[in-house]
């Protein structure tokens, strides 16, 4: 089993993965609240990034409306908890189920009508935006006034996993386990029939079909798994932030946010989305420090807005990554550091 899942890693790769997991496990022991909070966000982005990557990277389906599925999970679980007192596991089942059903319905329509590529992406945006406006008007979900999850000061200090009420450390461990779980799931899927079929359909649907792959069905599977994962992220989001506003949850920005880490890390790679998330967020921090230092040294004027400059360089940095490493940073890093075995060396591990 280990071989099948991690057969692609070299000794160095396995050691790096183990060290990474170990670091994540012990982080709350010494990190400040801020570091923990940022790492929670990074892990959340790594988790949704993996969900999104599963669709584009594995099955070749570009979605720019993934906030829809995340939002369905968030709103369903928040609604059931806030209005009916049902625990998040119920929300996960209902919200996840709903997201999977919506994902299946959208993709069934799209594939039935042979919508592909950019058009499929725009279809996902259209559905996400449509849903945002509908939730804006859904009084039972709080509309634009927001949906709030009840939380008491005592429960904030606790560790109630069943109700997802507790300290930031608890949420950190929950999202960390979800993130690692998603990674294991992706590894398992990629080495199973679905993984082979997805990649075949991604590379050449016509040839895949001639080899007996029901491309409609396998594309649907990809969308369904991905939307279910995104909905899971939504449940986490709802219980972590406790306040939901449609324009925050369903916005195009949120959908785009999900795509950045996997694209920068490496679309279609297993670890790329996680790597991308751990690169992008600190990149913003480093840029801020650099600019503030430059301002302090009076190399650039104080009147220059830090945020504008930061995002300017951030945009340029991302563009540079696309131009220089179009396959993402992770494959490049792997090659440099020798973390991944070349296909011909994998046999020996078996």
């Amino acid at each position, binding site marked *: 089993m280990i071989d099948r899942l991690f057969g692609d890693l070299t000794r160095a790769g396995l050691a790096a993965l183990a060290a990474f997991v170990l670091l994540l496990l012990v982080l709350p022991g010494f990190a400040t*609240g801020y570091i923990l*909070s940022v790492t929670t*966000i990074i892990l959340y982005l790594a988790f949704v990034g993996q969900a999104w990557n599963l669709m584009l990277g594995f099955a070749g389906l570009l979605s720019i409306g993934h906030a829809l599925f995340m939002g369905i999970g968030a709103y369903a679980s928040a609604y059931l908890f806030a209005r009916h007192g049902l625990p998040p596991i119920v929300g996960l089942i209902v919200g996840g189920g709903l997201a999977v059903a919506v994902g299946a319905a959208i993709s069934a329509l799209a594939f039935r009508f042979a919508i592909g590529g950019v058009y499929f992406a725009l279809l996902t945006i259209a559905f996400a935006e449509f849903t945002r*406006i509908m939730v804006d008007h859904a009084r039972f979900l709080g509309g634009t*006034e927001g949906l709030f999850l009840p*939380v008491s*000061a005592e429960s904030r200090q606790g560790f109630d996993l069943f109700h997802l009420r507790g300290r930031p450390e608890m949420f950190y461990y929950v999202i960390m386990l979800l993130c690692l779980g998603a990674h294991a799931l992706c590894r398992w899927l990629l080495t199973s029939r679905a993984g082979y079929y997805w990649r075949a359909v991604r590379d050449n649907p016509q040839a895949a079909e001639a080899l007996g792959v029901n491309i409609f069905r396998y594309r649907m599977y990809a969308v369904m798994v991905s939307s279910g994962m995104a909905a899971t992220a939504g449940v986490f989001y709802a219980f972590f932030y*406790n306040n939901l506003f449609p324009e925050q949850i369903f916005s195009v920005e949120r959908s*785009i946010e999900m795509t950045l880490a996997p694209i920068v890390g490496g679309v279609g790679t297993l670890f790329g989305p996680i790597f991308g998330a751990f690169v992008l967020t600190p990149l913003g921090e480093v840029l*801020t420090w650099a600019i503030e230092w430059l301002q302090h040294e009076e190399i650039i004027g104080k009147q220059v807005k830090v945020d504008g400059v930061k995002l300017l360089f951030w945009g340029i940095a991302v563009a540079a990554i696309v131009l220089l490493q179009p396959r993402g940073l992770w494959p490049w890093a792997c090659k440099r550091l020798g973390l991944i075995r070349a296909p011909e060396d994998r046999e020996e591990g078996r």
Partner: protein
Amino acid sequence: MERLSSRTSRRSVLAGGAAAIATSIAPFSIGRAQASKLKVGVLLPRSGPQAQIGIDCQRGADVAINVLKAKGFPELEFVLGDTETNPQIARAQAEKLIDQGIHVLTGCFDSGQTLAAAQVCEQKGIPLVVNIAAVPSLTDQGYKTVFRNFPTGPMIATDAFQLQKELYTAAGKAPKTVVMIHANDTFGASQADAAFGLLPKMDMPYTFVERISYDPTARDLSAEIRKGKGTNADAVWFISRLNDAMALCREMVKQRWEPMGILSSGPGWYEGQFLQNLGKHGDDVVSFIPWYDPNKAMSKAMTAEFTKQFPNLQLNTNHAHTFEALLIASDAYKRAGATDPAKLIEALQKTDIKDNVTVGPGVKFNEKGQNTATRCSAIQNRGGKTPTIFPAAAAEVKPTWPMRGWDKRA
């Protein structure tokens, strides 16, 4: 788009990037033990769509630091944070500020972002003095460390009705029908709900003929105005944001809609940008909003300092309420005599400030941390200025009502 920016404290900037990392990783208790000044985290949307408001609020804080020092309050030290108009970032930034050793947090203008920061403050036991945020749940959710000296949406609506009555009595002319046009966002929808719920109890001379909600992200607002004009209501009541307010007002002129008056109970219609861009067409609008009382002693000091620092700007509620949030924090520190957050919270609960800047008898918090006595003002746009017309105690000029026609303005 994940962006985790921050403004590190001035001190950490001095030490450069490496030290900034060290500061943010170091346990926050060390930073706190060394402090002699009260370290106040000022968390505002300094970038993103609300950037202009966040930057505006900061001006109130910059004014407060000098005025409070002159008035003999203990010295403040600011640690600035940026929410980037995103609750997710607001939460992380609140954590960061607390790690940097702040004793009290103030902010965050927007309800969603303030709620996110409130959760962190609650968990860490750090007091949060809200400058601006009207969502009722902020003080209804049972936070023990949240203090708000800003009226909730329903309070603003109630005051708007009462101030309107004063206006109509003074002017001797009242509308029979009013159309409500509001942004379908958190602030707009909750206040519109409150207004429609309250109207029957308020004994008003008019009824609402229609409630028109619009999407604040819409690119074009001509249909909204056409629909409003089509109701033939005597007056129109807007709850909007700045950019929509400008678009809506311009559409009213274009579509030649001249009701008895334009009422507003939200941001936008009185802000400097609005007055500047609309010119004479922005005149005569009456806004019912939390405001400063120009006749109070503290307000005079604030106004003087503000004019000194920002000679080209108009003092507004963003400045006044941020100023007052710092006044409240400073006052609590003075009485607590310590920077220990628990003692500060205790002192904040016992706040009783009479010499303040906003309208009403002063600052006092109920058991939920809400100042229920804070009141709104009615202000009217006059040639680029926004004098108070009601309540009488705070009034600077007499009202113009009904408003002048679009082509009858000099």
